[in-house]
């Protein structure tokens, strides 16, 4: 990446310029609108030609890291390759042009894809029903906890308003529980990274709505006591929620349904390789066990004989309702469908195999180089944690320094400072789509940075050095808010 700079688009603007070939013709008669409802001053949009627009945004794109350009070992985010075919075939003109409220007679092709996607997701997760409508992982979490609440309400079991989460959980878990009107109880994790069963037994009771778990956990290891956890929570009358963030680790190997989870969300933008798009769109399909089937969010695609149709309120009167204006991120769902069809049955379990192989290999390489694993007695799942607490203590450099210096070496930083319970941690997830050479190059870069920490620590602490900007002043960003561009005369 060259040290590019780019003006903001408004600085290119010249009165009277514009991309006129893209505009519709001017209408003969101006709009007849009531005077008090009209706009009187034009919005601040730039007046620029098409070439300027294309160059500006192309240059901006070149200031990004992305999977297409860089290795992205971002733990918990599953930054695997996004196949081009998924994009191309999801963007066929008929799919792009289809109105969400168009009749089922003009949507059988699209609906067939959605129905089959629901069926494939059921099969690969072992759940009894799937709804595709949530638009991101956190949205799926919301749907899951809302269903758990609806289930207890339907049984008039109104005291069940507490959600248990392990202390290492994703921040979305407690935030979701609160959005669903629940309270949150955090429980400890034992020294080997498994849930502390005694703490769980002490926590459950008649107020327990359910537990939210990621498995493999956010510590990058399989929760070995999961069967016992399920028995304890179910015996206490609670339900189990599976956060699908780490589904890539066990795809084709273990199914959340077989672990006795009642509600799950799947991040299709992780496990099923739809693009992250610079922070969205995602897709957070949810799956449920038989007891939660009546509460699935609508709409769902059903099939009568050979016709596909939408199922809505009339079909699912106990549904938690609608989560989006139409049917979620349909275009993302099409991409996930294409990906799953290309993988097929054998590809599905190859994902789990090779994601795990790559993670364990990279962990081995880093351990051999002297880095400390957070859970050295445990197998890595599809990701693992390195703790730099020794480097912090002896060399006064921290995980952030390593992360920023990796950018200079052409690698996106791993997830840093999450999970919160491991000091100075790097959570590293290579994914199955990276080659051995890339993993070796990453390990070599870590080794070089470690050496630099001893020999030239000040330079390391000043990283990155080769990017468009160096470390940014976040405190100033939050105190002297500059959230919109202002023309010079207005400043």
């Amino acid at each position, binding site marked *: 990446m060259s040290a590019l700079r780019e003006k903001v688009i408004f600085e290119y603007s010249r009165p009277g310029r514009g991309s006129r070939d893209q505009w519709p013709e001017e209408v003969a008669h101006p709009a007849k609108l009531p005077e008090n409802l009209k706009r009187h001053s034009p919005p601040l949009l730039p007046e620029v030609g*098409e070439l300027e627009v294309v160059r500006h945004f192309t240059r901006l794109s070149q200031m990004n890291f992305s999977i297409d350009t860089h290795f992205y070992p971002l733990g918990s985010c599953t930054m695997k390759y996004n196949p081009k075919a998924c994009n191309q075939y999801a963007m066929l003109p008929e799919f792009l042009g289809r109105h969400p409220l168009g009749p089922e007679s*003009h949507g059988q092709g699209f609906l067939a894809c959605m129905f089959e996607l629901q069926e494939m997701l059921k099969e690969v997760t072992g759940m009894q029903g799937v709804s595709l409508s949530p638009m991101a992982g956190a949205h799926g979490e919301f749907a899951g906890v809302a269903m758990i609440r609806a289930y207890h309400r339907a049984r008039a079991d109104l005291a069940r308003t507490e959600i248990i989460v392990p202390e290492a959980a994703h921040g979305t878990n407690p935030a979701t529980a609160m959005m669903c009107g629940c309270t949150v109880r955090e429980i400890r994790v034992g020294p080997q990274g498994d849930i502390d069963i005694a703490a769980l037994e002490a926590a459950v009771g008649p107020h327990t709505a359910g537990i939210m778990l990621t498995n493999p956990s956010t510590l990058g290891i399989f929760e070995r006591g999961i069967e016992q956890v399920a028995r304890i929570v179910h015996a206490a009358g609670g339900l189990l929620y599976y956060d699908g963030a780490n589904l890539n680790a066990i795809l084709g190997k273990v199914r959340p349904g077989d672990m006795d989870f009642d509600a799950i969300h799947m991040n299709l933008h992780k496990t099923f390789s739809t693009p992250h798009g610079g922070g969205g769109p995602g897709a957070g399909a949810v799956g449920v066990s038989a007891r939660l089937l009546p509460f699935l969010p609508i709409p769902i695609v059903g099939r009568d004989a050979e016709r596909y149709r939408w199922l809505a309120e009339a079909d699912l009167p106990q549904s938690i309702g609608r989560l989006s204006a139409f049917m979620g991120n349909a275009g993302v769902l099409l991409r996930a469908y294409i990906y799953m069809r290309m993988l097929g049955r054998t590809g599905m379990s190859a994902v789990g195999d090779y994601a795990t192989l790559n993670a364990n290999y990279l962990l081995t390489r880093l351990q051999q180089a002297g880095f400390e694993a957070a859970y050295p007695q445990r197998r890595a799942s599809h990701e693992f944690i390195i703790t730099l607490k020794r480097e912090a203590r002896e060399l006064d450099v921290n995980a952030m320094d390593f992360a920023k210096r990796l950018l200079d070496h052409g690698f996106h930083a791993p997830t840093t400072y999450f999970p919160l319970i491991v000091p100075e941690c790097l959570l590293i997830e290579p994914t199955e789509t990276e080659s051995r050479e890339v993993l070796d190059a990453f390990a070599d870069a870590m080794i070089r940075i470690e050496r630099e920490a001893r020999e030239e620590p000040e330079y390391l602490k000043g990283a990155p050095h080769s990017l468009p900007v160096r470390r940014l002043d976040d405190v100033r960003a939050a105190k002297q808010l500059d959230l919109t561009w202002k023309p010079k005369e207005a400043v």
Partner: protein
Amino acid sequence: MAFIPHTEADVAEMLAAIGVASIEQLFDEIPASLRVRSLDGIPAAMNEMQIGKLMSARAQTDGRPLCFIGAGAYEHHIPAAVWAVATRGEFYSAYTPYQAEASQGTLQVIYEYQTMMASLTGMEVANASLYDGASALAEACLMAVRANRKSKAQRVLVPRSVHPHYRKVASAAAGNQAVRFEELPYGAADGRTPAAALARFDAQDVTALVIQQPNFFGVLEDVDALTRWARERDIFVIAVVNPTSLALLKPPGEWGPGGADIVVGEGQPLGVPLCSGGPYFGFMTTRLAHVRQMPGRIVGRTVDVSGRDGFTLTLQAREQHIRRARATSNICTNQGLLVTAATIYMSLMGPQGLARVAAASHARTAELVAALTRVPGVRRVFASPCFHESVVALDRPVASVLQRLADRGILAGFDLAEHYPELGHALLVCATETKTGAEIERYATALGDVMKAARAA
């Protein structure tokens, strides 16, 4: 297979380095009782050529009918440059810009987007987007409950003329937090929310009033009067607006005396294809005073250690990854790629281009309504100014007429029978700048034929 590059030699050497005999051994911590026995329900793999043929065949099944449906999703011309640039791998396959130094492109796009949306809506600040228009309304209601400290009631007034799906999404999302929604009627003759409907709340504790402009019927509300009533009582005004319309219509920041407090809407008309309902993006703008109660990501401009300008995510103390159970929302995504497309779209359109799109859509809809109401048995329902949608009534049930027109390749509008049975045989129709005079004529002629045949039958 499965986009996995490993050779057999790679696998053997990697296993040797780890010190295990097989990949299978890496799963030895998983109880055997839990291992998958079969995935028979998953079909066999397809290569790229095979899946391409399947998807093309499915797409052709759906065809490309002539579409006069709006109802929250609008067909506009999308310049070629929008998606040619937005699908560049550096935008398409990038993650959330948490590592600011490696994400200046995405961050600057969002900063430019925030500037455009704030100005378009007449507000001071914007977030980096939410899932869609409906979920943005739900978040706005929750935000109003947090930000309006003068109200204890957690009570939001929502006109029946607000998009019915938006109302359902808001109650599904906010219902678990004990927010109460109360419906306001619309005028039978003009389709607007009458001031008289507010009178019974005059002396009551109300948190917020939702105003959709144009409303679901396409009708323009008397936004000044509604805003004045709310502001005189310290009730928050949540505006739900169509971004295209704002090239012509008064922005919510200028409504009534004092303007709206929170503005949300569906961003899809700004360069995002219809695509069966998503991915779209919800936008949200507000006053600077409320920015700390706003959900979702926000980008700010700052400086780096050498004093150079740069962009970063800011005010993250509101968000779930920092604040966990006390966050403003559980949301951790924005619709980044759609925001990128919309920012490119707005740059290409500029103020003049967007005004042309809005004016052409308004004019085409007026032509459409004139053409349809010339057909015997069709009349206009509300005698109020509209933007680019309008309600017409037929003299017979809408569903069968719609199906016959669909058989002729025309999607003639959205049937209001389910959500507004009191309107009788009513149909919501829309024409944007994409519709020609000939296409409007084709629809009117086909409608005439179908109605005549139905009458004869």
